[in-house]
């Protein structure tokens, strides 16, 4: 049996935050927590891509592109990364086995459609799930899936099938890990926090166009008011259900990642004792609460309890209000004077 003895499984809200945090802690960044990884990686986002449909519904995301949180956090903390994709399944398996035999714990990108331990209801063709493989014994691979309370395992066949799932974002057996162990100083974390916040401010309030950032939230809000006339009540309800799933399903920590970001700002305050951070954290909590109130309104519609144009207008207005709250929060962050 081969396994990495330093590796410690910690449950996280989101898979990529969890893999990033757990791999980097094992590599020497002991201070790292899920909110810190999320914030340093500038994870908070909003975008609705027009013309694109996912599972026959609107394409909406509350976080940044898959893979970026890990990449940015490693770069900000000056930890070199090794990342490999494979054209052949055999080569992918051989490489993983070599890593594990050398005592490494590695991150793996997988598809969830064939992920056997997931409940059937969650198994869509979503290919950007992340897990850590930290050992193997005979035919079993030891798996730490950050969204789960405990570690689990997959057979060789099961693991190969999810590593080489096909379709959009096909993982192609992707394996990634920190190349070397490095002690990360508090001074580095301090700098990384500032960098992460500044980049997130850019993404949320300075991005051009009106489909992303705080403007994207308002864009969806205006769209929602038009949905009943454009799509009919039934489909408009399905679209709202999709919005709620993107906002609340596995991994957001509640309120479309807004609570994780609020927690991040509190942790940032420990490194940068600037009073404004605590106040701005509260604004993000307010935004998260509003997102959840909006979800309750949406559920009234897709349950068929309500569904008049006025009900869709209330729903749309929620998003317009949230857009203003998040604009205010990021503008306040952009004005902070960081002391080195």
């Amino acid at each position, binding site marked *: 049996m081969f396994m990495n003895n330093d590796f410690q499984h910690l*449950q*996280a*809200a989101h898979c990529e935050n969890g893999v990033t945090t757990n791999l980097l802690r094992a590599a020497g960044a002991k201070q790292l927590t*899920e*909110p810190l990884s999320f914030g340093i990686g500038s994870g908070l986002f909003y975008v609705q891509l027009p013309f694109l449909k996912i*599972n*026959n*519904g609107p394409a909406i995301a509350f976080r940044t592109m898959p893979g970026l949180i890990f990449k940015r956090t490693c770069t900000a903390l000056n930890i070199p990364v090794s990342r490999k994709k494979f054209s052949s399944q055999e080569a992918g398996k051989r490489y993983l086995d070599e890593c594990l035999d050398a005592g490494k714990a590695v991150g793996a990108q997988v598809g969830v*459609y064939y992920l056997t*331990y*997931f*409940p*059937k*209801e*969650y198994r*869509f*063709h979503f290919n950007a799930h992340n897990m850590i493989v930290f050992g193997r014994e005979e035919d079993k691979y030891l798996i730490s899936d950050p*969204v*789960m*309370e*405990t570690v689990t395992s997959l057979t060789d066949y099961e693991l190969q099938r999810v590593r080489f799932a*096909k*379709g*959009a974002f*096909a993982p192609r057996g992707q394996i990634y890990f920190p190349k070397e162990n490095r002690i990360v100083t508090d001074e580095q974390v301090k700098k990384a926090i500032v960098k992460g916040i500044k980049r997130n401010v850019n993404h949320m309030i300075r991005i051009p166009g009106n489909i992303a950032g705080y403007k994207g939230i308002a864009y969806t809000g205006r769209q929602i008011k038009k949905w009943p006339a454009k799509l009919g009540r039934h489909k408009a*309800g*399905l679209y709202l*259900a*999709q919005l*709620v*799933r993107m906002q*609340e*399903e*596995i*991994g957001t*920590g*509640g*309120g479309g990642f807004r*609570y*994780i970001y*609020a*927690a991040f700002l*509190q942790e940032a305050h420990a490194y940068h004792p600037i009073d404004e951070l605590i106040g701005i*954290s*509260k604004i993000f*909590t307010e935004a*998260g*609460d509003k997102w*959840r109130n909006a*979800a*309750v309104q*949406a*559920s009234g519609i*897709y*349950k068929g309890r309500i569904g008049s144009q006025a009900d869709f207008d209330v729903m749309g207005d929620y998003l317009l209000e949230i857009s203003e709250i998040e604009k205010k929060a990021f503008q306040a962050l952009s004005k902070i004077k960081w002391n080195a």
Partner: protein
Amino acid sequence: MKKEEIPQDNGALNKLTKEVVYVTDDSGKYSTDLSTGWEVKTKALDVAWQEIEQRIREAKEKVLRDEASPILYFMELRLMDIGIVAAYTGFWKWTIKKHLKAGVFRKLPDGKLKKYADAFNVTVDQLKTMNVHE
């Protein structure tokens, strides 16, 4: 969200694990806690699945009326779009669109049928008859 407001409803994920949520305590400080699920999102997932099941039923009826080939039924059953079928079978998208026609499908050689059967995780016989019980 405050710690005492965490919903503990039933959700599909509950069979596997509780999930982490970020909540505040009385002093406003953040920590994590576990939730078994939230009825609002359980229902969102339910309606998504009702819609999928509806699409599967409609696809099956279309195939039985000879207006489409069984590939349409299995695409819906496996939650795939043409892009995903193309990725798993290696066929071009326009080829698959042709194979979606009942008449064209009937003339396909076994080799090609086998590729679809593998992609849908069924046997060639099941592919032709739509006879799957799962």
